């Protein structure tokens, strides 16, 4: 008999909790949809940021970086070499100067980002069978200039060197296959994986896409919490109207609302954008969905935990916007994780974005499966658990504070009723609290 009673009771509680969670879910959806600021962050920012950044970095590599040349050799060979350099993708010769001083003047005005200097003895040294030197000067204000100039010149010089080598070996009586052997005994083959054009967008954008999801969620949830505290009575995060329903139902209902929204948005951000802008997308979409579930939940609970500290609507954005930059560096995408100091690596581990970026890049750009990213995957689930716990604690603390304030108000109101004997005055009490902060 008792068993049946417990069973029905359990079923009743379950249906009730689902019902109530659903009602909080619907309520939160309504709040999100009616708040213009949150819509801007959740929807418009999420839509626009990927497009804007992708169009900024659309040119993946540098093309035709202007350089000046100083050709003091004036030989057929140097002219041919320069022609080849000019024809390469990375570099374009825009100035021919007679001296380094003149080239420097052009360089100072920033019309060119590099100088190629061919000394007067260049040709004669090559004819004499000696080693000829050639100097290049690079603008180091951006490393990509340096890379462009260095790659194009070194490939072309290696190519020319092979020719000269064969000529010289022939002169020494080494010919045919033997000359080939001596000229290049160990041919090397450099295979660039996962970003074969060495493009900048293909490298940075996948990480930024995750950052967009992480940061828009964080600021959106922070804004919702700040607004709730500005508008609710006594500046509490959770109004008494809802918290009667129980803390887990509130957290589940709210987080589910964000999750559903972002799960749908992620199809655009992580699925569509890489295909439209031709970023790397060799990963298995199923694996990305697997990854997305813990990543979104971890981010949501992380944001909900921190949102309890935001008293005002804009606090989160004002104080933590700069953190997006820090998160990119903590993720180890541009500065390899192995080279980050242990303390910062541990610090970075705490943020869902770090694991999210690493795992997404590995799956999406490098074709890894969930098995290869198991470290990140498990970390994300741990984070989900821990941040869920902290969310519960902070919400509990907030509600308790709320109850105490409610109690104080009741007592105060009571006193006032007793002294002034005017119950309508009660409402002024709330106004006082509001103007306080």
């Amino acid at each position, binding site marked *: 008999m008792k068993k049946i009673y417990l069973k029905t009771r359990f079923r009743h509680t379950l249906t009730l909790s689902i019902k109530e969670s659903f009602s909080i879910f619907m309520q939160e959806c309504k709040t999100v949809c009616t708040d213009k*600021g949150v819509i801007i*962050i959740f929807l418009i*920012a999420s839509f626009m940021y990927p497009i804007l950044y992708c169009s*900024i970095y*659309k*040119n993946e590599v540098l093309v035709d*970086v202007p350089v000046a040349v100083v050709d003091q050799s004036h030989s057929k060979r140097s002219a041919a070499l320069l022609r080849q350099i000019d024809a390469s993708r990375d570099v374009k010769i825009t100035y021919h100067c007679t001296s380094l001083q003149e080239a420097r003047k052009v360089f100072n005005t*920033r019309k060119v980002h590099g100088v190629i200097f061919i000394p007067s003895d260049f040709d004669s040294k090559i004819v004499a*069978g000696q*080693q000829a*030197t050639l*100097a*290049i000067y*690079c*603008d*180091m*204000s*951006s*490393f990509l200039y340096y*890379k462009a100039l260095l790659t194009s010149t*070194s490939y072309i010089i290696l190519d*020319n*060197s092979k020719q*000269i*080598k064969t000529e*010289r*070996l022939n002169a020494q009586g080494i010919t045919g296959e033997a000359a080939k*052997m*001596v000229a*290049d*005994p*160990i*041919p*090397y*083959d*450099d*295979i*660039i*994986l996962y*970003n*074969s054009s*060495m493009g900048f967008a293909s*490298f940075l954008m996948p990480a930024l896409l995750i950052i967009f999801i992480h940061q828009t969620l964080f*600021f959106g949830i922070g804004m919702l919490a700040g607004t709730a505290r500005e508008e609710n009575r006594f500046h509490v995060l959770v109004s008494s109207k809802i918290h009667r329903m129980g803390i887990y139902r509130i957290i589940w209902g709210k987080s589910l609302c964000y999750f559903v929204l972002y799960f749908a948005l992620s199809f655009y951000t992580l699925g569509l954008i890489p295909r439209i802008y031709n970023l790397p997308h060799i990963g298995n979409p199923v694996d990305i969905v697997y990854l997305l579930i813990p990543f979104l939940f971890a981010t949501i609970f992380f944001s909900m935990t921190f949102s309890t500290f935001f008293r005002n*609507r*804009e606090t989160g954005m*004002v104080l933590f*916007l*700069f953190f997006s*930059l*820090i998160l990119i*560096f903590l993720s180890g995408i*541009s*500065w*390899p994780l192995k080279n980050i*100091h242990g303390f*910062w690596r541990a610090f970075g581990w705490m943020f869902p974005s770090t694991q999210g970026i690493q795992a997404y890049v*590995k799956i999406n750009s490098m*074709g890894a499966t969930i098995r290869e*990213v198991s470290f990140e995957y498990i970390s994300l689930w741990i984070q989900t658990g821990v941040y869920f716990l902290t969310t519960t604690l902070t919400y509990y603390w907030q509600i308790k504070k709320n109850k105490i304030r409610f109690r104080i108000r009741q007592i105060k109101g009571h006193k006032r009723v007793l002294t002034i004997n005017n119950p309508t005055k009660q409402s002024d009490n709330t106004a006082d609290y509001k103007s306080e902060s």
Partner: protein
Amino acid sequence: MPDRKQISPFGSTLRRELARMKSRPMYFILTVGIMSFCIIFFISLFNEGQLLKMPIGIVDHDNSKISRQFVRNLNATQQAKIAMKLGSYQEARTEMQKGNIYAFVEIKSGFAENLQANRRPPLTFYINDAYLTAGSLLLKDITAMSLLTSGGVQQQILSAKGIDESLISGIIQPIAVDTHMIGNPWSNYSYYFLNVFFPGVLEFVILMTTVFVIGIELKEKTSRKWLRTADNNFIIALFGKLLPYTAMFIVWGFVCNIILYGFLYFPVQASIFRMLLATVLYVIACQCVGILIIGILPVLRDSVSIVMIFGMFGFTFTGFTFPIEQMNYPVRIFSEMYPIRHFFNIYTDQVVHGVDFRYSVVYYFILLAYTLLPFLIFFRLKKAAIYQNYPIK
């Protein structure tokens, strides 16, 4: 006495602002917390300066004396460290996908034998360029090492063939390249990043602070009090309000410069005073952009959103990661709106290239011209402060 009258409203506005700064922890975090965190974070993150000893893998099927020598040489290079020796290509690729290694070299079996038999055995290396920084450095390093190994073999063969020692270097490397990296000869990443990050974060914080301190008055409907303290003179009100922040951020700018060029001895080609002058102008320019933003949209939360969108692009539009000239035309025009873009030009000229002052004078004037911006919205903002006719939420 008109003179005394003019000083006292300014003084009282100043005093009022200082009192406000003490009232909430938010002001402290904005003006002190963020900058100090970023300075500590970035300096400690990039303290190596260069990426050294990045993990790579080796798939050595040959295991001969020559191949092991090559592996040892590779391990001794600056950038690469052999983290693991792997059994097969498949295994190495999995490790790469796990992110444990950034590159691996495959030496096929019979490498030494083929080399001695003059059959030109190839050396294959695989670089993961999904991590572009690590990838491109390792590509440079491993290519150099394989060329060097190749050169060693050539030298042996040529000596064995009895060719004169003086001719050998001319045969192995007929053309040598002498690379000069202007302003950063070690291709040091901390020189490259920190010089831009500090002003970048500073711009961000200044924009936020300026928008916040003015916007909060409008939001909390205290702007009339603010005006009244300044004797209803809006210019005095603005100056009195923003001067503490100007002073504070100029100090921060100087601190950054002194840390970079004084303590960390980053190379600076020209006089540091030119950078200090640029910093002063830069801080004021950023504040003026902040006033412009809050003036256009005198609603705190909207202007904070604008700063969020505007500020985030600041780093992109300096053009130090991906050069501006290589971007699309509309983007290039847009980038000119940012004070950091012009500050970066001054930095490139003075710190990296060390050119004459006259080359960058125009950028100093552009930074100075930003002070005209607040006049565009002066009356609009004043009206907003008086009538408080914008939504506060």
